[in-house]
C-alpha cells in the first residue's frame, strides 16, 4: 500500500471541506437568527446523542482536513526524509491527541 496517495487525500480534503462548509453555514445562520445559547444549553446539546454525533463529525472532519493540508505543506517544504517523517509524526500525534481529547470531553458529557 502506498503511504502518500494522491487521490485518496484529494477526495478526503474535499469531502471534509464540504462537511466544514455545512457547519460554518449552519453556525452562521444559527448565530444570525437564533437566540444566544447559554453555557448550560451548549453542554446539554453536547450531552445529547445527536449533538455529540454532530460535534464528533465536525471534529473528525476538521482533524482530517488539517492532516491533509499540513501534509501537503510538509511535502512541499520539508525535503530531508528524516525531518519530514519527524514533522509528520509530530503533526499526526498532535492531531490524534486533539481527537482523543474531543472524544473524552464528549464521553464525559454523555455519562
Amino acid at each position, binding site marked *: 500500500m502506498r503511504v*502518500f496517495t*494522491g*487521490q485518496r*487525500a*484529494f*477526495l478526503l480534503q474535499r469531502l471534509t471541506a464540504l462537511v466544514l462548509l455545512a457547519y460554518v453555514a449552519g453556525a452562521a445562520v444559527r448565530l444570525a437568527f437564533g437566540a444566544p445559547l447559554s453555557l448550560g444549553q451548549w453542554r446539554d446539546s453536547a450531552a445529547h446523542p445527536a449533538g455529540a454525533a454532530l460535534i464528533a463529525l465536525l471534529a473528525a472532519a476538521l482533524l482530517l482536513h488539517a492532516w491533509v493540508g499540513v501534509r*501537503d505543506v510538509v*511535502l*512541499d517544504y520539508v525535503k530531508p526524509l528524516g525531518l519530514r517523517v519527524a514533522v509528520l509524526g509530530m503533526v499526526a500525534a498532535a492531531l490524534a491527541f486533539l481527537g482523543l481529547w474531543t472524544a473524552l470531553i464528549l464521553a464525559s458529557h454523555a455519562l
Partner: protein
Amino acid sequence: MRFRVYRFNPESGAKPAFQDYEVRLQAADRKVLDALVRIKEADDSVSFRRSCREGVCGSDAMNINGRNALACITALEGLREPVVLAPLPGFPVIRDLIVDMTLFFKHYHEIRPYLVNDEPPPELERLQSPEERDRLNGLYECILCACCTGFCPSYWWNPDKFIGPAGLLQAERFIVDSRDRATAERLAFLDDVYRLYRCRTIMNCTEVCPKGLSPARAIEHIKVQLVRRST
C-alpha cells in the same frame, strides 16, 4: 524606452544582476522582442532565445514586468517603465534570459505525448467524429513555451516530481483523444501525490497562458476522470 534586463554569465563568476538599457525604438518596433533585438544590437552579450517572432514556437517565453509572457507578442505600448525582463521563474538559468528546460521536457516525455494504439491501422487514417475532434480543442494548441509551468508555485516547489501544468495539459490532450488506447495507463501514471496532486488549483497557469488555454481546467478534468475510474 527604459529596460532592466536580468544578466547572468556563469563563465564570469559574477553574481546575477539587472542591467539598465535605454532603447531608441524604431517606427516598426511594436513588441518586447523588437526592443530586445535593439538591445542586442547595442550589447551583443545579451542572450535570449527567439525564433518564429509570431507566438508559435514558444522560444522567447520570459518574465516581463513580473508576468510570464512571450516577448514576440507582448506589446510595448502600455508597459510600465523600466520594463523588467527576467528569465522564467523556477527554471535554472543558463545565461541571461535563457533557462534550462531539461526537466520541463523530461516531464513532457514522461506523459507519452503521442498516440498509443496497437490496433491494426486502417487503410487511410484513424477517423474521428466531429465531436471527438472537438474534445481536442483547447488542448492541442499548446506550444510548450513553459509560461504556465514557470508561473506555477507548485512547480517551483517540486520541479523534479510535479509534471507541471504544460505537461498535464498535454497528458489530457492524449487522454481525451478517441484514437488513443492507453487511457487507463495514462491515468494510472498520473495518479500520484507528486505528478498530479501537487496542483492546488492556484490557476496561475490559466492566467498567463499566451495562447489562452486553461491547464487548470485540463488538470481538473484529469482528476474527475481518476475519480470516475475508481468508483
